[in-house]
């Protein structure tokens, strides 16, 4: 029995969606609402990471119905997928952002991406050459900053969040974060980062927006390039540490469940309840565009 057939034995097909753990909570929430509304089986959502998700999605025509990603497909991935005879369509779901947080006792100070590069990169650009990161305290980066040592808890290199962080702050000296103890790689559990930050002063945590949103009363966020993270600033792109989230689904032999799930994902309802969970909604025109494309998917009930 292959993976595809396992779901086909029931009356309505069971959808399988794999991919990024950043999209996972939103996809799972939509899956539940989809089940309540249509009475079709609750889709199976698996968080295995963007890269592994795309690999599985493109491995065969059966396999998962959709893949959640925190970046668009690369050209190479697209070609590989099409070589298998898989046709698919991508939907932008909204934005997610990385937020630097501290506990309420420490006043946050305004950071720029350059400051963050100096604080976290393995090597920094000094006049003409790349040197191992010499900064040990925030004050050594900018005299206006407090004097306590740099201590930042953030994502580990295996996560998509790490890639985004590196891509956003990476300077001319390579794409690695420092490994000399000032940047601490936390396991893929943002609640742990929040716990650490709450219990230790002078510690900075890097978490995704939904985690900050759920703990607003207990955490301070750092302004980045003078912009505080908020729904508005992330949506219009002025907050620099943000990233788009996508869902790709197979369009070959469109089954009604797939189309219905996508329609639920881009519905006005979903926009409200996903925003409560911390997903930054698309702008109105983009959202309208996604809804139009979802209607055109076919497989109408």
């Amino acid at each position: 029995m292959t993976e595809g057939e396992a779901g086909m034995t029931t009356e309505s097909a069971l959808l399988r969606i794999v991919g990024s753990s950043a999209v996972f909570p939103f996809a799972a929430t939509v899956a539940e609402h989809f089940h309540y509304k249509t009475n079709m089986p609750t889709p199976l959502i698996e968080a295995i990471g963007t890269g592994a998700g795309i690999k599985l999605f493109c491995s065969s025509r059966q396999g998962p119905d959709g893949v959640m990603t925190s970046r668009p497909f690369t050209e190479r991935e697209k070609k590989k997928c099409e070589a298998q005879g898989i046709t698919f369509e991508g939907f932008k779901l909204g934005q997610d952002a990385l937020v630097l947080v501290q506990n309420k006792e420490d006043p946050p100070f305004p950071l720029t991406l350059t400051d963050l590069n100096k604080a976290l990169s393995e090597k920094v650009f000094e006049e003409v050459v790349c040197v191992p990161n010499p900064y040990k305290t925030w004050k050594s980066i900018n005299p206006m900053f407090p004097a306590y040592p740099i201590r930042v808890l953030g994502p580990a290199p295996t996560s998509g969040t790490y890639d985004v962080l590196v891509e956003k702050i990476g300077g001319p000296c390579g794409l690695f974060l420092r490994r000399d103890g000032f940047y601490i790689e936390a396991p893929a559990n943002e609640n742990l980062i929040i716990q650490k930050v709450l219990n230790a002063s002078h510690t900075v945590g890097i978490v995704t927006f939904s985690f900050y949103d759920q703990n607003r009363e207990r955490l301070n966020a750092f302004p980045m390039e003078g912009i505080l993270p908020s729904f508005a600033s992330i949506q219009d792109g002025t907050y620099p540490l943000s990233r788009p989230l996508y869902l790709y689904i197979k369009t070959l032999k469109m089954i009604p469940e797939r189309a219905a799930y996508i329609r639920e994902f881009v519905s006005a309802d979903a926009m409200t309840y996903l925003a409560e969970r911390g997903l930054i909604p698309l702008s109105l025109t983009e959202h309208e565009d996604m809804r139009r494309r979802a209607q055109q998917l076919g497989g109408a009930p």
Partner: protein
Amino acid sequence: MIASLSSLRKRRLKERLFRGAGLLSILLALFFLGGILGNIIYKGVPAFFRTEISSKLYPDLLNAHARYTADRLWIVASDDVDMYYKKGYADNLSPLKIQEINTLKEGEQIRLAFNEGFFTHSDSREPELAGIWGGLVGSCLTLFVTFMTAFPLGVGTALYLEEFAPKNQLTHWIEANINNLAAVPSILFGLLGLVLFIHFLSLPRPSALVAGLTLGLMSLPVIVVATRAALLSVPQTLKEAALGLGATPLQVLFHHVVPTALPGIMTGVILSLARALGETAPLLIIGMVAFIATPPSHFLSPATVLPVQIFNWSRSPEMGFIENTSGAILVLLVVLALLNGVAVFIRRRFERE
């Protein structure tokens, strides 16, 4: 005379110091254990209660009986309300909503009630609706597969190796390998399961069958080692007496050796199953990190197990999942304690007979 006295004093002092150090270490261990357990209980017990809001139906329109008895229907509140009512966290509530809740409080239209949904619902992204039923069913199915594979294979291997196999280089080498396998980190068995059952045999991915077979592989060497230890403890004289009375080796084995060794074998099996029940790492490798909102109906349907569900909940941003996580850990601890209790009971029971 004096010299020997002072030496005695020294030796007694050493003894006291050693006892003191022993007592201190056990107290320290108890202190940490108490701290962890206390923390989990403190965080987890609220998960067994939920906030409910009463909705007044139309008493005038109901039948005469219902008018007096069921004029109130209690409905589970959202997780934000739950958190505010239990702990006063108001992060996600607008001032208007807080005012509404306070009005409900004055009218006694909001209450804490036993959260039976925590035991009867399956996974959900809404903390107030999430329950452990799906995980429990998945764990039971998985454990059944593990038992059905690891128990006969493990005990059979141990019986053959201990009682029938010739003692030569080959069996010696096999024994050494089994002992090593028993100490291999469980995550490696996850990798083995991934390659063997999913890539090679292409069994359906997050299913109780694959999870059970993988955990069966993991438990196998432990069961072999435990069974062999139990068989070794059977006195040689017993076997020789039976053989001397004309019993065949097979009769000796099943009439005398196995019954005598059974308490030890059962204890080993139950303890290794208890370990399999609490295992998470190999199951993450074989792709059980899924959101599955319906409990599995058979061995091939998508399933998750309790420890993986705990792992998933612990990574969720909502405050409500913090208490759900601890609540589920409490349930898992109770199940594990029960299993260990059964092991102790079986051992006592058989030893007496």
